[in-house]
């Protein structure tokens, strides 16, 4: 039987070495906890990180913590883990607590993966023999293979995530505390992680996840606490609180300078709030009415999307831009839509945008075809985000559709090069190569796909096709 009870917990940080000028800037910012001086005489800057937090978690609870940057999510996790002892109030816990925060405890880049498993395991309260017992499991789950014998500094951040996650979940903690960022692994890993976590939760333990993306929270939690400026302002079922979070996100816009007059300002906020809540049509209309000379619907969509993106609501911005594109063809809006979709992590939707599917207005024959606009935008984005595997894959697919096989192959190779090896990317690469007549390289790609997923029918078919062609040549 595990339990985690917080009673009226307060936490505040002293900030040493802050200059008066820094203090001024701290006072005027809009995110984070409240900052005040403890007392004037000592002139010490204190950040009130948590205020009056009370929680009661018992077996089977899966709590999500949601809130803006600096709302106190990580601090609250640290308090739960016993790392920060509260200034007042108390924390009671029964059961073994395993925190998985930014990095594994005691992680050192110079030590090998195996060394770090042992060190961190010991610090997380395991014995040497327990650690030895779970090493095969970690080897299997992380799929890091030989890498485990190399210094951890050679790992990519995704590999580190795998290692940390594997260790934390091998421990079978009674209370598992996870900070955001754990979902940073690739798609395939995320699915496996979910299975593993699900199995762990199934054994009736307590889970607390902090995140500002609601995807993770919706996936794992049955209860959400919304934090703002160090307070829990709402707690309840996932759907309800997440909605409230988005609404508060929109109202947070209030604090930011908007040059329009008060009424217009109100309308604009309302428009943004509506967009965040998913009522995109109303939002665009409202936004169009904000300005004296009524904006065209298309322009309004463009402006509203830009305003939303500026506030960091990429998903809502993308929704608005997509809706705007239904109204009429517009190069600028199409480019922004691609950018917002990438920012919102919805890369898979870019493809249909490029081929004019899903209710996108017809681009006139006189205009450039949407596919080449999207390709150009993607190429521009990839100049800065050249590690974005999914984006490379999308670009590769589009280029192949345009008939530019050479560039398509180059892009698909980039998509396959990060080592995590997504099977579908390898298959596409193989197909493009085969269509291009490069049967030998195509065979290599299909072999690669088979190595990752031996039962892949598509890879077998591709391979036998390629072999047939090679023989007939």
């Amino acid at each position, binding site marked *: 039987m595990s339990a985690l009870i917080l009673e009226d917990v307060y936490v505040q940080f002293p900030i040493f070495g802050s200059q008066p000028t820094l203090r001024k800037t701290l006072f005027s910012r809009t995110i984070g906890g409240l900052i005040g001086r403890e007392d004037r005489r000592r002139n010490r800057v204190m950040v009130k990180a948590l205020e009056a937090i009370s929680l009661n978690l018992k077996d089977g609870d899966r709590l999500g913590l949601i809130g803006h940057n600096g709302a106190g999510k990580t601090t609250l996790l640290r308090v739960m*883990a016993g790392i920060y002892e509260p200034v007042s109030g108390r924390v*009671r816990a029964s059961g073994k607590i395993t925190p998985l925060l930014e990095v594994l405890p*005691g992680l050192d880049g110079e030590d090998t993966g195996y060394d770090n498993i042992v060190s961190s395991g010991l610090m997380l309260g395991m014995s040497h023999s327990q650690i030895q017992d779970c090493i095969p499991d970690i080897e299997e789950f992380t799929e890091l293979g030989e890498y485990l014998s190399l210094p951890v500094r050679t790992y990519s951040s995704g590999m580190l995530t795998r290692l940390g996650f594997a260790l934390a979940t091998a421990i079978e903690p009674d209370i598992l505390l996870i900070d955001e960022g754990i979902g940073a692994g690739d798609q395939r890993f995320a699915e496996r992680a979910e299975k593993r976590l699900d199995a762990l939760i199934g054994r009736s333990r307590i889970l607390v996840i902090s995140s500002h993306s609601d995807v993770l929270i919706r996936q794992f939690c049955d209860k959400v606490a919304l934090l703002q400026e160090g307070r829990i302002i709402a707690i309840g079922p996932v759907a309800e609180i997440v909605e409230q979070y988005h609404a508060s996100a929109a109202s947070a816009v209030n604090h930011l300078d908007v040059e329009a007059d008060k009424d217009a300002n109100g309308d604009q906020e309302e428009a943004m709030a509506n967009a965040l809540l998913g009522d995109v049509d109303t939002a665009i209309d409202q936004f169009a009415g904000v300005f004296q000379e009524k904006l065209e619907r298309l322009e309004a969509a463009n402006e509203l999307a830009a305003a939303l993106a500026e506030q960091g609501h990429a998903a809502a911005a993308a929704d608005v831009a997509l809706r705007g594109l239904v109204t009429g063809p517009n190069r600028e809006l199409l480019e922004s839509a691609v950018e917002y979709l990438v920012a919102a992590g919805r890369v898979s939707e870019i493809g249909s945008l490029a081929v004019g599917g899903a209710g996108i207005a017809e681009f006139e024959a006189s205009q450039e075809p949407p596919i080449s606009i999207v390709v150009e935008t993607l190429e521009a984005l990839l100049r800065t985000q050249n590690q974005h595997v999914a984006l490379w894959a999308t670009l590769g697919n589009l280029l192949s559709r345009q008939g530019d096989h050479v560039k398509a192959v180059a892009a698909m190779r980039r998509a396959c090069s990060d080592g995590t090896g997504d099977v579908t990317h390898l298959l596409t690469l193989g197909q493009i190569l085969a269509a291009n007549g490069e049967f030998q390289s195509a065979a290599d790609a299909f072999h690669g796909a088979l190595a990752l997923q031996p039962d892949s029918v598509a890879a077998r078919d591709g391979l036998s096709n390629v072999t047939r062609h090679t023989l007939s040549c």
Partner: protein
Amino acid sequence: MLQMNSAKPSESINDTPKSLTVGASVDVLLGALRLDVWGRLGWLEIRRRYRRTVIGPFWSAISLAMFVVALGLVGSGLWGQQAGEYMTFLAAGFVVWVTFSSMLVESCLLFINSSNIFGQVQLNYSILAYALVWRNLITFGHNFVVYVILVLIFAPQYLGTVTLLAIPGLALILFNGIWIALLLGMLSLRYRDIQQLVASVVQIAMFVTPIFWPPEALKASGRSLVFVDYNPLYHFINIARAPLLGEVPTTQNYIVVFVCTIVGWGCAMAIFAHFRKRIAYWK
């Protein structure tokens, strides 16, 4: 209402109400029991420091040997002593001094450099202090080879049952290393000036403490009082060095060290009890 340094008792994570002093004592005691953790931490630190070198920690011994031989040749001329005997004296003093001074200097980084541990998981802070003392003992073991070689070559007459007194002497030094690590670790985490201060004091202390020069060289004078009799570092060095040179440490040596041990542990525990909960916040 939210005074940060209020001394009111508070509950631990396990809901056993305990006073701050008890909390600190429990930390120090339970920390000592986690031999698996601090043993590994200390050992890994040594391994990291000498990673990719061929002879590893013996580099520390080699640099000490070079230092002792070079200084031995100069110093024996200065003090008009036999080079061999003076080198043995230097080596004995230096292996002890290096251990003591590097504990002092490293103590300042105790908490500053380990936020990757105590920011991530709840651990007894004393574990870090034990790891620090343990890794200095490992280095001492390597450095000690220099003394052994020199004493066997130049002054085997020093060796005898008296030499065994060096073991309790060293143990006392290491035992003091724990409170020093906790105290300096906390102070320099909060006030980063301490680190600079300790570094310069240690550097000067090396010259004014009788390590290069025999304590008798100052004769009985006001200077001798200040730099020898009233210098606790001398007494700490001597409880381990004298046996290595075939002498029994003086009663005065032991008294000073015992007093320092009691007062030091007392102060360190008082401060540790008071500020232990704030350490995580100070980083």
